């Protein structure tokens, strides 16, 4: 069996919240796994359990061949001996130490000379040389984040745990640092677990995603797959699939399923959809909906061509979010340019095109 991090954690908190999570993450080759879900779902608690900061009588953690926690056998390795790096949401920098002092803090096992060397190495790598003598309160948010990352990486951890690494930053800084963080994470070759509730962050930083809802891990897989093919309507809501509607199955064979949604008919790729299911939820991502104004420019590859009426246009940064009535409410996402080319206005008649492979069905019998 390939090296893996295996977690089983169950704990009821005094206020009633129950965390009951099972997670298995491949360690080799190292990848970035995102714990994604709404606030209060238990993402941070799961991360803290892996770090050894959260204990429970019902907890088993294996890291490769090591056992970090197994209460049946009375095993509990304290955080100090797990050799992990934990980046706290608000960075938790030591306010009484300088930038260099913060980075050097975790290097207790090295000689003074080696500490000095490793500290300057990290100061340089994170472009903090000029700030080495400053204290945390003299730093900007982005600088604090770099110091916290440098401090976390200094002792060369075997596993990196990041709790909302960008949420303490303001908007523009966050977007700028998202790319930097992605480059850093892929250059590290350490397995990473990252907590976020931001969809853009998850998409930009993660390879795999584990959806956390009400203390459980409800779906775990490749990030594209989970975002496009949620297992339940609740997960579809968490990953913000724009259109989720009830549908009736009209006809199903091994390749294609025909469904009725409102007054419209849709064809979906069958995949794993059970052929005997009668009821379904249909999920369509807004970016998978193509809009056309004239009938003659039909693209041959799209199975579904739905005439509809534009109900509203909402400006969202570089994109326009368009709400349509195609016999059922359908949402589409267009670039500003595409929107201008179509010269879309409210109550315009359009044709919505959706590939059968982009129509995802969730069986309602399960």
């Amino acid at each position, binding site marked *: 069996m390939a090296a893996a991090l295996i977690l089983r954690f169950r704990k009821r908190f005094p206020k009633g919240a129950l965390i009951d999570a099972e997670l298995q993450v491949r360690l080799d080759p190292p990848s970035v796994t995102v714990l994604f879900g709404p606030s209060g779902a238990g993402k941070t608690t799961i991360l803290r359990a892996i770090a050894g900061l959260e204990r429970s009588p019902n907890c088993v953690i294996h890291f490769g061949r090591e056992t970090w926690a197994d209460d049946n056998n009375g095993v509990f390795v304290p955080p*100090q001996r797990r*050799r*992990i790096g934990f980046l*706290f949401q608000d960075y*938790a920098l*030591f306010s009484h130490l300088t930038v260099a002092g913060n980075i050097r803090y975790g290097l*207790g*096992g090295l000689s003074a000379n080696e500490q000095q060397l490793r500290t300057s190495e990290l100061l340089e790598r994170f472009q903090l040389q000029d700030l080495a003598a400053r204290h945390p309160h003299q730093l900007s948010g982005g600088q604090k984040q770099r110091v916290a990352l440098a401090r976390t990486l200094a002792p060369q951890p075997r596993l990196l745990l990041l709790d909302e690494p960008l949420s303490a930053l303001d908007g523009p800084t966050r977007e700028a640092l998202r790319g930097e963080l992605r480059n850093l994470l892929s250059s590290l070759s350490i397995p990473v677990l990252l907590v976020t509730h931001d969809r853009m962050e998850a998409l930009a930083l993660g390879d795999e995603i584990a959806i956390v809802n009400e203390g459980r891990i409800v779906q775990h897989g490749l990030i594209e797959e989970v975002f496009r093919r949620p297992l339940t309507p609740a997960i579809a809501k968490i990953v913000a699939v724009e259109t989720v509607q009830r549908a009736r199955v009209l006809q199903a064979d091994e390749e294609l399923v025909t469904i009725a949604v409102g007054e419209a008919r849709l064809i979906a790729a069958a995949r794993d959809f059970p052929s005997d299911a009668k009821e379904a939820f249909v999920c369509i991502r807004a970016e998978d909906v193509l809009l056309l104004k004239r009938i003659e420019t039909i693209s041959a590859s799209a199975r579904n061509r739905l005439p509809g009426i534009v109900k509203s246009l909402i400006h969202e940064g570089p994109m326009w979010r368009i709400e349509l009535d195609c016999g059922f409410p359908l949402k589409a996402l267009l670039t500003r340019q595409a929107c201008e080319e179509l010269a879309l206005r409210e109550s315009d008649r359009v044709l919505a095109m959706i590939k059968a492979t982009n129509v995802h069905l969730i069986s309602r019998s399960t």
Partner: protein
Amino acid sequence: MDWSAIELSLRLSTLTMLLLLILGLPLASWLAFSQWRWKFCVEAVVTLPIVLPPTVLGFYVLIAIGPHSPIGQIYAAITGRGLPFSFQGLLIASVLYSLPFAVQPFTAAISTVDQRLIEASWCLGRGWLGTFLRVTLPLAWPGILTGMVLSFAHTLGEFGVVLMIGGDLAGVTRTISISIFDQVQALDYGAAHQTALALLLFSFLVLAITYGLQRRVIAVWPPR
């Protein structure tokens, strides 16, 4: 002025303060972090000396360290002397009497240190003691200093407990406050005034310098 009483009082206060630093910090850390459900009982016991009359505290300490008590007997067997009416006996009573004045500010200061900093230190490989010395102490020092100064000043001014435990033996247990009492009893108001004023000014200076250094008043009884 009764210089031997002043010297004795300063020696007693300094030793009490140091003993309370050694005993009080572990106790305060425990009070700050423990989740034990009966912790409030310990908190009540620690705070008792503030509300008890010094005579009550002194009386029980006298019995506890007296020649018939286990403590007194063990002490006598080791040193050949008794604890009551000795400097050592006085020191034990002072430590108990000033306990809340050290432990309360210590606890308040330690519990204001952000728990995440302590956890960050653990994740960076530092153990419990290393974390306490490198993170908790440096961040909690204003409150710890307050506790030290208050326990020092409180011991300097104690009277009732000294009278119960120490009696009034010149150079052994006659502290500055007892000396003032003696001078007043002897109607030597001039000498009493001199000593009293010296004690007043000294106490004021110590507190003023401490609070001035901190530039903010750390409450002895902070709201939790």
